[in-house]
Structure formats: structure tokens, C-alpha cells
């Protein structure tokens, strides 16, 4: 029964593992894009300009109210022409086709970004106003204020939330399989199709996802510990 998972050309073991690597790669790049979008749109939501707040509200409402699959279809079928349209403005007339990895990262990153926006906004809001005021009083601004004083506090509070977003993002990447990117989901479909053993391969896929979840939980737990060092000591007193 386990022959099908042999490594090398006779079995699907190495292919499934490569699928898992692809899932982790596309999830990580989507999370990074999502956090970047999250920082930008959280800044928009917290800004004093109505238009910026409105744009951010439209973005998060659309992503949170529309199925992920539709967003992926939009980018899968429309992504390349959108990029070509932009390229034309800059004078490039050639044909551009985005690969499945790029489209997947943009789609899942956009979805992930809406959740990150809320997490980051909440975290920034929970930093006491006094911290900003004291920083400014000390004459700090720019990187020394936001990078050294505010960011560590935001990171500590946002980390558990980002851990949840990672979990959602990881699962959302399974949807990219419909665009042809060979990650766990797609690979197990291919293997199931050619061996006529869907049960075994979908079970293997389940185990791979649970394994990635387990490992990332360990990672996030230790990161949380690292960022809340000072706070743990305070509570122990």
C-alpha cells in the first residue's frame, strides 16, 4: 500500500513532498504580501483622510464578503491582461503572461491582506497613545519612533492574530490548485488520478497540511515568547 509513496520515479513520495514545499513557499510569499498590504491599509484605516479610510473599507469589505474562489478566478483570467494594460501605459507592447505562482501569490496575498489589515489595525490601536506622545516629546520621529518604539509593541500584540492569518492563508492556497499550480492539493489530485487511489493520496495530503500546521504553531509560539519576554517577567513578579 505504501509503495505508491516510494521516492524517485517509481512512486509519488518525492512529488508529494515537493508539493508541500510549494504550498509552504506560496503561503509564505502570500503572507508577506498580505502583511505588507495589511500595514498599508491599516495605515489608511487609521488615517485622518476620509478617502483613504473609504478605500481601505471597500477593500476589506469586498475580500471578506466575496468567496476566495471568485477572487482567484478574477486574477487567473484577468491578471495577465491587467498587467499588459499597465505595461502598455509604460510603452511596453509585448505579451506578458503571469505564471500560476505569481497569480496565486497575488490572489491569496490580497485575501490575506484584508485579514492582516484588521489584525494590525487592532494592534496599533492597542498601543497606548502615551507611547507616541512620549516618543515625540523625546524628539524621535520616523524610524526611531515607529521602528524602535511602536513596532515591537505592535508586533507583540499582532503576532497571535498573524498566526491565525497564516493558518487561513495556508488553507486558502489549496484553492490555487484550480489554476494549475502544483502544490499539495494539485499534486494529490494528479497522483490520485493516475493511480486510482484517491483515498490514500487525499489522506496523505491531510497529513501534510496537519504537519505544516503543527510546525508553524511551534514557530509562532516561540516567536510569541520571544516578543513578550519583558511582559512575562512582569507577570511573574
Amino acid at each position, binding site marked *: 500500500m505504501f509503495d505508491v509513496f516510494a521516492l524517485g520515479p517509481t512512486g509519488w513520495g518525492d512529488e508529494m513532498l515537493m508539493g508541500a514545499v510549494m504550498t509552504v513557499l506560496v503561503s509564505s510569499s502570500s503572507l508577506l504580501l498580505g502583511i505588507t498590504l495589511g500595514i498599508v491599509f491599516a495605515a489608511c484605516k487609521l488615517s485622518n483622510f476620509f478617502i483613504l479610510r473609504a478605500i481601505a473599507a471597500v477593500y476589506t469589505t469586498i475580500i471578506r464578503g466575496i*468567496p476566495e474562489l471568485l477572487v482567484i*478566478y478574477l486574477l487567473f*483570467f484577468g491578471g495577465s491582461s491587467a498587467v499588459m494594460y499597465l505595461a502598455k501605459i509604460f510603452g511596453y507592447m509585448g505579451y506578458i503572461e503571469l505564471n500560476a505562482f505569481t497569480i496565486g501569490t497575488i490572489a491569496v496575498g490580497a485575501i490575506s491582506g484584508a485579514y492582516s489589515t484588521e489584525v494590525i489595525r487592532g494592534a496599533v490601536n492597542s498601543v497606548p497613545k502615551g507611547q507616541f506622545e512620549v516618543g515625540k516629546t523625546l524628539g524621535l520621529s520616523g524610524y526611531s519612533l515607529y521602528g524602535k518604539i511602536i513596532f515591537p509593541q505592535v508586533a507583540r500584540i499582532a503576532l497571535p492574530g498573524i498566526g491565525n492569518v497564516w493558518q487561513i492563508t495556508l*488553507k*486558502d492556497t489549496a*484553492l490555487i490548485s484550480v489554476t494549475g499550480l502544483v502544490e499539495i*492539493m494539485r499534486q494529490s489530485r494528479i497522483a490520485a488520478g493516475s493511480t486510482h487511489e484517491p*483515498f490514500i493520496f*487525499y489522506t496523505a495530503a491531510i497529513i501534510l*497540511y496537519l504537519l505544516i500546521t503543527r510546525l508553524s504553531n511551534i514557530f509562532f509560539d516561540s516567536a510569541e515568547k520571544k516578543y513578550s519576554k519583558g511582559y512575562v517577567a512582569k507577570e511573574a513578579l
Partner: protein
Amino acid sequence: MRFELMYESFFKIVEGIPLTLQVVSISTILGIFLAVAVALMRISGNRLMSLPAYYFVYLIRGTPLLLQLYFVYYGLSQFEVIRESILWPILKEPYWCGIITLTISTGAYSSEIIRGGILSVSKNYIEASGALGLSQIKTFILITLPITVRQALPAYGNELILMVKASSLISIVTLMEITGIARTIISKTYAPVEIFLVAGSIYLVINFIIVIFVNLAERRLGIEKAT
């Protein structure tokens, strides 16, 4: 923007709304029963009950819904035993596989919401109820459940919206609900933006209506907004 195409496809996509709503409501209702059962198992204090419930929730929350759907639809049908069992007429239908998968999924997610709600019920109420001579079952139905509903409703409203979104996945196993029809039109007309706007708006309207209803229910039950 091809507005005429948007106008025409609107009427085609609208035809998918009944299927979406049907699948969502059937699996939501079945899912509530599953969720209450799983939540009660988890807080039962008996490891033989709570451990399976814990692993069930872990398994469902840790894997993508699409994979669960494939597992039920393609994975189970591999076995002769299942193909010859009385369950086969159900398990060979993508419609029922979709409902089974969505029920299991929402059952796992909502069980956590319900568990949180039940745990939030103060012990004083339970003790007071016992002192008044109410049986355990009566205490659960008359005291615990109403308070749980109040506690869990805001989070459950979110779960309903997630269910509407999740139901789009059944289009992958050939069911022609909103997303399925939208996808077909996109691949025929190659107008992804237009069709996305039409189908997306329909989803937003459905979810907006759900939000309104949940808010109404919250107000009736006297739940104060945490914001």
C-alpha cells in the same frame, strides 16, 4: 466595461442563488446539531468523549475545505464497500457530498463558538438552577442554552458569512451555483472583471442581508455591541 454583458450575465448568475442558499441553509442547520454535540463532548470532562471531539475539530480546522470535499467526493468512493452500501445513492451525488462536507466543516468551527458560549455561562446560574430543583437537562435547556445563544451570536454571524463564501467551492464538483455559473460565463466570454463584479455584488448583498438579520437578532436578545 461591457455593460450589456454584465446585464445579461446578471440574469444567468441570479439563477444560481437558490442552489447557494439551499446548500448553505441545509448544511448550517445540520451543522448546528453537530456543533452542539461536539461542543458537549469537548466539555464533558470524560476523556473518551472530549479527545475524539478535540481531534475532530483539529483535523477540520487544520485542513483546507477543498481537500475535505475531494476526500468525501473522490476519496470515499474508491472503496467497493461504500459503492455497494446503502449510502452510495447519497455519496455519489456531488450535491450531497457538498452538503456533507459543509456540514462537517461548519460543525467543527461552530462547536468552538458554542463551547466558548457554554463556558461563559456563570456557575452561579447553574447552581441556582439546581437549588431551585431543576434537573440537569432542564437547566441546560432553560438556563445554559439561552445564555449561550446570546454569547455566541455575534461570532456565529461571522460563521454564517464564511459558510456563504465556502459554498462557492461546490462549484468545483460541477454544481452550478453562483460561482459555478460565473466561472462558466468567464471562460466563454473572457470578461473576468465584469463577471466578478456581478457575482461579487450578489454575494455582498446576500452577506449584507445576513448581517442585518444577525444585528436584528442581537438587538432583540439585548446584546450590546463590544465596539
